[in-house]
C-alpha cells in the first residue's frame, strides 16, 4: 500500500494538487461560500487524473509486480490521501478564522463540524462516481468528471442553501451546543466516506479487470 502511494505522489500527481491542498486558506475570506473548497478539491483530482492519463500512468502501473486491480487501489489511495490532507489543512484555517473573523460568514455555512461532515459526503460521492466511470475505460477522465461533479456540486449547493433556512440555523452555528448537535453529521460523513470508498474500490477494480490497456 505504501509503495502504491509513494508511486502516486512521486510520479502521478499534477503540481496543481499542491496548490489545491492549501485551498483551505479560503476559509480566511470574510464572506465566501466555503463549499467551493470541496469543488476545487474535486477539480484538483480531475486535473491530476488528466495528467496521469497523458503520462500513461495506468500502463506503467500495470507493468509493476502488482495485481491488475491494484492499479485502481493506487488511484483510490491517492484520492483519499489528497482529500484527507486537504480537510486536515482546512482545520487550522477554520480555527484562525474564529479569532480573526468572529462575525461569521454571511454568505453560507460556517467552517464548523457539519461543514467537515458534508465535505466527506461530497468527496465520497465524487470518488464513487468518478473512479467507477473512469475505470470502465481508464482514459475517459472528462466523462467521469461531468458525471461525478454534478451530484457533488448538488450536495455542496444543498449544504450552502440549507443554512439559510430558519429551521437549520444550528447548522450554521459555531456555538458549543450547536457544534455538538452537528456531530452526527460528521459521524455520518465519516461513515459514508469509509463505506463509499471501499465500495468505490470494489466496483472500479471489477470494471478495470475487463479493460484492455
Amino acid at each position: 500500500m505504501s509503495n502504491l502511494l509513494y508511486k502516486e505522489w512521486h510520479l502521478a500527481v499534477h503540481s496543481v494538487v499542491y496548490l489545491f491542498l492549501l485551498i483551505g486558506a479560503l476559509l480566511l475570506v470574510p464572506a465566501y461560500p466555503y463549499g467551493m473548497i470541496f469543488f476545487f478539491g474535486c477539480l484538483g483530482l480531475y486535473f491530476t487524473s488528466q495528467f496521469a492519463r497523458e503520462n500513461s500512468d495506468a500502463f506503467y502501473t500495470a507493468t509493476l509486480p502488482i495485481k491488475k486491480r491494484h492499479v485502481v487501489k493506487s488511484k483510490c489511495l491517492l484520492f483519499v490521501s489528497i482529500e484527507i490532507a486537504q480537510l486536515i489543512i482546512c482545520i487550522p484555517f477554520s480555527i484562525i478564522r474564529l479569532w480573526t473573523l468572529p462575525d461569521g460568514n454571511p454568505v453560507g455555512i460556517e467552517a464548523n463540524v457539519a461543514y467537515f461532515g458534508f465535505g466527506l459526503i461530497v468527496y465520497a460521492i465524487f470518488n464513487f462516481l468518478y473512479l467507477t466511470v473512469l475505470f470502465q475505460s481508464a482514459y475517459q477522465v472528462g466523462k467521469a468528471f461531468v458525471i461525478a461533479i454534478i451530484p457533488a456540486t448538488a450536495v455542496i449547493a444543498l449544504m450552502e442553501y440549507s443554512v439559510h433556512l430558519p429551521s437549520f440555523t444550528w447548522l450554521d452555528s459555531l456555538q458549543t451546543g450547536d457544534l455538538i448537535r452537528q456531530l452526527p453529521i460528521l459521524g455520518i460523513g465519516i461513515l459514508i466516506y469509509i463505506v463509499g470508498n471501499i465500495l468505490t474500490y470494489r466496483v472500479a477494480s471489477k470494471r478495470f479487470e475487463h479493460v484492455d490497456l
Partner: protein
Amino acid sequence: MRLLEVEGLTKKYPKFTLKNVSFSLEQGRIMGLIGKNGAGKSTTLKSMLNMVCPDKGTIKMLGHDFRQDEESCKQNIGVVLGSIQFYQDKKLQTITGVTKRFYQNWDDAAYRKYMSMFELDEQKQVKQLSEGMKVKYLIALALSHDAKLLIFDEPTSGLDPVAREDLLELFQQLVKDGKRSILFSTHITSDLDKCADDITYIKNGEIIASADKASFIQTFQSLKAPGEDSLNLEEIMVRNERGTYNV
C-alpha cells in the same frame, strides 16, 4: 524446464481475433515472435500479461498460473512493451526510485552496471532520450531485478544498427548461463537470424508455426522455387504474407 506456457489464448475484437494461441518457451532459450504489423504480436504479449483481458486461455510462467499468482509471476519477469511513453517530464532517477521499491530482488549494482553500459544518464528526463535510449532504459530496469523471463515487444525497432547489434549480443549473453529465457516480438527477421533459438510465427491472430529455428525454416522450404537456395526467415515471412493490390 518451461518458463512460459501459453495455451489456447483467445481474444475477440470487432475486427480482429486472436485465435487459440499456444506456444511454450524452455529455460535458457531466446524465442522470436514474428508476424507482420497487426498480426497480433502485441495483443498476444499484452494478453499474456493481463493488460489485455483475454476471453480464453491459460498462461503459466515459471510453473505458476499467471492469473492466480500475478504478483509473484511479475516479480520474476522483465517486461518492455515498446518504447517508454510514460512520465515524459520525470527524471530517470525518479522513475527508477519508484520502480525499485516494488521488486524484492532489485539489484542496485546490476542497475548501475546496465545504466553505465547503455550510457544512460539518470539525471535526464524521459523526453530528453532518443527512442533507442528509452528502450535501453526499460531494458536496464527489466534486467535489474533478476528476471528469469524477459518479454520484449519490438525492442529493436527504434535502435540504430550498432545499438541493435549490441542488444542482440546482450540477449545472447543473458541466456548463456541457461537460467533466463527471452521472448521478443519483432518484424525485423534479421534480428532472429542472429540470436533466436526458437521461432513462433503469428499470422492474422493465429499461430501458424512454433518450433526451434532449424525445424521452423525447414517446415517452410516448400515455399521456395525450383533451383532456389534455402529460404531465410525474411523470405519465409514475405512469401507467407505477400498480397496483391488491385488499384
